[in-house]
């Protein structure tokens, strides 16, 4: 569905005119759609993107937003020069392994560790720099820029955005009973959306029993 179609459906379900709404402006409904997209991204974790991080000499900590402003959380860090996946570790484990690991530099990093929502660190830091990490990450959704824009989700998940928009509309009307009911329906759809993005992609596996 396009943004206009989503907007039309939300307004219609809120009993307002889709073409000349009275109680909600188009901008308000578009904000609802965007919030719905964010909630979907947080719960379904289906928006996956990739950014490339250049290795810098002597650098352990990388600010993710520098390379990917829409990053929510990376789920894979791949050393492109060595074709190797970096393993997750914590600073406490590094402390237990080597007393002054903060000062260590090496040829290539083996591990990566978290340092707040903005930073990740790699260990050991490269002494010479050059080359890239491939950072695969869960992303926040891009705002729909015009009426013809479509959400990045699979089409079956677009209904959830409509429901969420209606839910927000009902909250503005202080209709908490119906709003809660709608939110329950939205949450119920997340399970299906997660499956659609995950295990159901393997439907065509050799070992998968065929359904009809």
């Amino acid at each position, binding site marked *: 569905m396009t943004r206009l179609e989503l907007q039309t459906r939300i307004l219609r379900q809120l009993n307002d005119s889709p073409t000349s709404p009275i109680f909600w402006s188009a901008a*308000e409904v578009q*904000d609802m759609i965007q*919030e719905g997209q*964010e909630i979907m*991204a*947080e719960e379904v*974790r289906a928006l996956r993107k990739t950014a490339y991080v250049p290795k*810098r*000499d*002597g*650098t*352990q*900590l990388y*600010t*993710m*937003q520098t390379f990917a402003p829409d990053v*929510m*959380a*990376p*789920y*894979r*860090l791949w050393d492109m020069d060595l074709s190797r996946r970096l*393993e*997750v*570790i914590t*600073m*406490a*484990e*590094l*402390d*237990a*392994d080597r*007393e*002054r*690991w*903060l*000062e260590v*530099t090496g040829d290539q990093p083996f*591990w*990566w*560790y*978290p*340092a*707040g*929502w*903005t*930073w*990740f660190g790699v260990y050991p*830091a490269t*002494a*010479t*720099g050059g080359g890239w990490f491939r950072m695969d990450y*869960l992303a*926040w959704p891009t705002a729909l820029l015009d009426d013809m824009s479509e959400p990045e989700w699979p089409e079956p998940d677009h209904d959830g955005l409509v429901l969420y928009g209606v839910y927000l509309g009902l*909250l*503005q009307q*202080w209709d*908490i009973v119906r*709003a*809660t009911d709608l939110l329950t329906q939205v949450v119920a759809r997340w399970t299906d959306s997660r499956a659609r993005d995950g295990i159901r992609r393997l439907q065509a596996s050799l070992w998968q029993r065929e359904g009809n």
Partner: protein
Amino acid sequence: MPTVSADLDLCQRFLRDSGTIWNRTELLEFYQDALRQLCARSQAARRFVCLPVPPRWTMSGTYAWEQHHALGGSFRKLTYSYRSTTRETTALWAIESAEGLTPTAAFPGVTQLWEISHTTLDVARHYRFALPRNHERIAGLWWDHKRLWPVTVRELDAYDTAWYRQSGEPYFWTPGLGESRSVEIYEVETTYQQAYAQTDLLGLPRYITGARTYTQTYEAGQQWRFAYTSPGELADGLESTGLRITRDAVSGRQVLYIWEEEMAAGATTFTAASRVGTYAFEALHSAATVTDLPTGTVRSASSPDRQYVTTEPWAASVGTVRAWQSSELALLVWESVIPDKPAITETEVPEILPGPLQKYLRYYVLFMAFNRQGEGYNGNLAAHYEQRWLRGVRLLKRLGDITWMDQKFQRQPVARTARRIPAPQLPSDFPRVRG
């Protein structure tokens, strides 16, 4: 990211109120509380900060009430309290004296703890380091890049020694006894370590010197505004950045070429000199290349041997360096923080959070607004928004550990596996040991 003002506008739409029941100031206060709560409860906003050794406190004072004059900085009371804290003294013997006892030779007093570095006397004071004002909690603490492990005061007390003034290399840290936003280390390292210090407390760092070698890089093509030959020309009203093209004055004269200098010195042979240029383009006409004019201030620092990081990685890269710290032979604190004062205003953006999480700040505002006693109270809506807000707290807590998605099944600790020494198996007829 929308501004706070835009968020509050949206809140007012959900409240269906334009300031009659909940005025804008009240909503802004809820918003500020939400931001502080979200950071504190999620601990997701983390940064590195260095504390120099020995510790520096913003202000030392005689009475606790003087803390008010530290203006939000750290405050250390240098005196000992006695007689129900109505009296303060700098030396313990005064307490004995006040009670009519014979005074004992007592420990010397110091105003600032860094003074301990300059005395060989035994100063019986706890060696405490002040933490920043917006500190929330410590996630890790290193001294000279070596991890210090947390211990309690009770564990240290078990040594039955004056652990708080035991000098040596630090191995542990403890919340200790004293101000809440401060820590102690054990053992105590009092050697004075000077990292970076601004020689003039005003303005920006212009020139960095030290044991390490610093070079600057700058964007090429920045030119001098004019060229001049003698300082007198500046007195004639030339302003802005000018390039002096003459050499050092010889006999009161400004000379352009080295051979002029040699001639004035009475030489009979002269050094050939290239043409002096005044603007960069003159290099095309055989003039010596005119150097660029580096302007502005330090924007970034890098080294193949170590990393220089900003203390607020979530903030936009604007502004300039105000303080320059080193973790070498100092305490490096990895801490979670809350927004610093002054509190956020309507024209600002809560950068300390990921943008999409701003909606949870709005939920908190709505929760508090509907929960407030008075005309606008609505318990059901308040409960609903509270649940939405709490979900945001949980989400940000999870985002604080950004590796959570990559931790399933493949985590491999590199720590050495602790091996337990097997218990000895004694034969059944081994004689019993009697205590």
